[in-house]
């Protein structure tokens, strides 16, 4: 019987011939933890009697969730991670390097066929490069630190097929919001979601990262895109060459199929307080906002910044509204600087933060007050996510975010002319 990409990856990593539903112990190719999850992992590692990492070159510790630190508690967490990383010789990303997932993508470890675990639910992002990547907890991360191995259930694979060319001002974010709204919050639970179709073929790797990033919002174990020439090009541009390539077999077994025609898609918005509460932007236009956030592991890449800057050029953020921009990494920040995007953001009145998670997790750089409304390009709008439990979050694309900042209310980006 043929295999899906996920079955192939787990077969390689477990050195067994496995299929969906099998429970395996597999070797991981890389492991990542950040300042929101590493402390518990380091505690568990020590409690388990851990002295040294199984392979420090494959361990990544990132300061991104509260970076620079906003309080003494976080400062102590940073200090502990810094000391541990230096002592062990692990890969360490200092404050201001960027969001962990973007850094993992830029590290070259996220490659076709690899198995990567991260102590963060959005680790599923790297599936955009043909990796099987998934979020795990801190205690099991400690076990990975010790052994380089973990048990997994080989996931079934759901195919999500997008056909058509994306209309003007409709972005990969709108595609994935529409998908989450259709499949619902647990519609892909425990499964790998394989994105296919002509829309994906045309889509950049950056766009695919946005799609795979939000696979977990449907309960998925990972999102995945079959590696192609775009994957190779992307890796080459970062100075790496893919070590392997792989495809799903024609006769592989799938758990389900969802089809979406993207040629008629409108910009989408996930309304409070659930990611699967998705509506077309035209039905929520006019809702006033207090804050707009452009950034995160979902939408903090150069294409996202470029799209938003194109709308903001020669325009101002509406009085009474603040727009916060956090590039996903230092590399992205440099590119934005070279392309003149940072100047556009500053001229239009945006706050440009250092690379990192920004206000996405409600810890710093734009915490919402009770009653406030935020339009955000991030991936979660749960109650209390970005501050007060009485605040509201609307998830949008970078284009909708920029248009919303200009008008001070949720705005269809197709309304704003671009020179």
């Amino acid at each position, binding site marked *: 019987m043929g295999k899906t990409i996920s079955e192939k990856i787990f077969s390689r990593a477990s050195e067994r011939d496995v299929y969906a539903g099998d*429970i395996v*112990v597999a070797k991981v190719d890389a492991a990542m933890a950040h*300042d*929101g*999850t590493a*402390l*518990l992992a380091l505690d*568990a590692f020590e*409690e*388990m*009697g851990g002295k040294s990492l199984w392979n420090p070159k494959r361990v990544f510790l990132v300061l991104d*969730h*509260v970076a620079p630190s*906003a*309080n003494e*508690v*976080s400062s*102590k*967490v940073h200090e502990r991670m810094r000391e541990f990383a230096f002592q062990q010789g692990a890969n360490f990303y200092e404050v201001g390097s960027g969001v962990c997932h973007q850094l993992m993508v830029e590290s070259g470890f996220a490659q076709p066929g690899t198995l990567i675990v*991260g*102590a*963060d*639910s959005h*680790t599923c992002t790297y599936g955009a490069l043909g990796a099987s990547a998934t*979020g*795990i*907890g*801190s*205690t*099991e991360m*400690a*076990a990975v630190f*010790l*052994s380089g*191995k*973990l*048990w997994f259930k080989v996931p079934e694979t759901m195919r999500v097929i997008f056909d058509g060319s994306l209309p003007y001002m409709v972005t990969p974010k709108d595609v994935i919001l529409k998908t989450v709204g259709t499949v619902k*919050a*647990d519609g892909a*639970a*425990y499964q790998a979601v394989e994105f296919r179709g002509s829309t994906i073929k045309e889509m950049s790797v950056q766009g695919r990262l946005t799609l795979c990033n939000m696979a977990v919002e449907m*309960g998925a*174990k990972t999102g995945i895109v079959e590696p192609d020439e775009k994957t190779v090009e992307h890796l080459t541009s970062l100075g790496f060459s893919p070590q392997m390539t792989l495809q799903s077999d024609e006769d592989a077994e799938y758990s389900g199929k969802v089809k979406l025609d993207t040629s008629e898609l409108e910009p989408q918005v996930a309304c409070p307080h*659930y990611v699967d509460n998705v509506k077309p932007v035209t039905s929520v236009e006019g809702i006033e906002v207090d804050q707009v956030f452009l950034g995160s592991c979902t939408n903090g890449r150069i294409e996202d910044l470029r799209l938003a800057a194109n709308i903001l050029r020669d325009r101002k953020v509406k009085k009474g509204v603040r727009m916060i921009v956090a590039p996903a990494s230092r590399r992205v920040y440099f590119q934005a600087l070279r392309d003149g995007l940072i100047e556009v953001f500053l001229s239009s009145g945006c706050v440009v933060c250092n690379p990192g998670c920004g206000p996405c*997790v*409600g*810890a710093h750089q734009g*915490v919402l007050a009770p009653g406030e409304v935020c339009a955000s390009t991030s991936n*979660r709008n*749960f*109650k*209390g*996510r970005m*501050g007060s*439990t009485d605040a509201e979050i609307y998830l949008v694309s970078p284009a909708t975010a920029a248009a919303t900042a200009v008008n001070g209310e949720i705005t269809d980006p197709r309304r704003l002319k671009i020179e």
Partner: protein
Amino acid sequence: MSMLIQGRAWKLGDDVNTDLIISGKYKLSITDLNELSKHAMEGVDPKFAENFVKGDLLVAGKNFGCGSSREQAPLVLKYVGVGAVIARSFARIFYRNSINIGLPVVECKDVEKISERDLLQLDLDRGIIGNLTKNENYRIKPIPQEVWQILSNEGLVAYVKKYGKLPW
């Protein structure tokens, strides 16, 4: 670990996410779990931690614990004294985290039959939930061996301390 867990049911709905269980703003500013657990389930009921009776059980709908990978979510429930979580289904990372820290989590298709504050007796050994208030029994989804060996030893750290090695 005790195979018999008895307590009253605290009913919850579908898709209870990790931000409702413990908000990121607390997770990232409080590392003392006793302190942190005072904010457990604040997004659902601001007085939850204050009112919760140690040993009682949470009974939820589908996709309990969806969202973040934060292990603080099952940890605060454990610190508040949640005896077990019974749900129609769990989000995968939350499920794994609970097992790894030794918080019993079981799937049951009959959660709708359980009412607020029903007295329940969860028998992990027999795989049955006894509803002592309604005099009914419900079957739980069998726990795979790989999971059971960790849970029955009260979590992964406890397992390693006991056997001097990982289960794999």
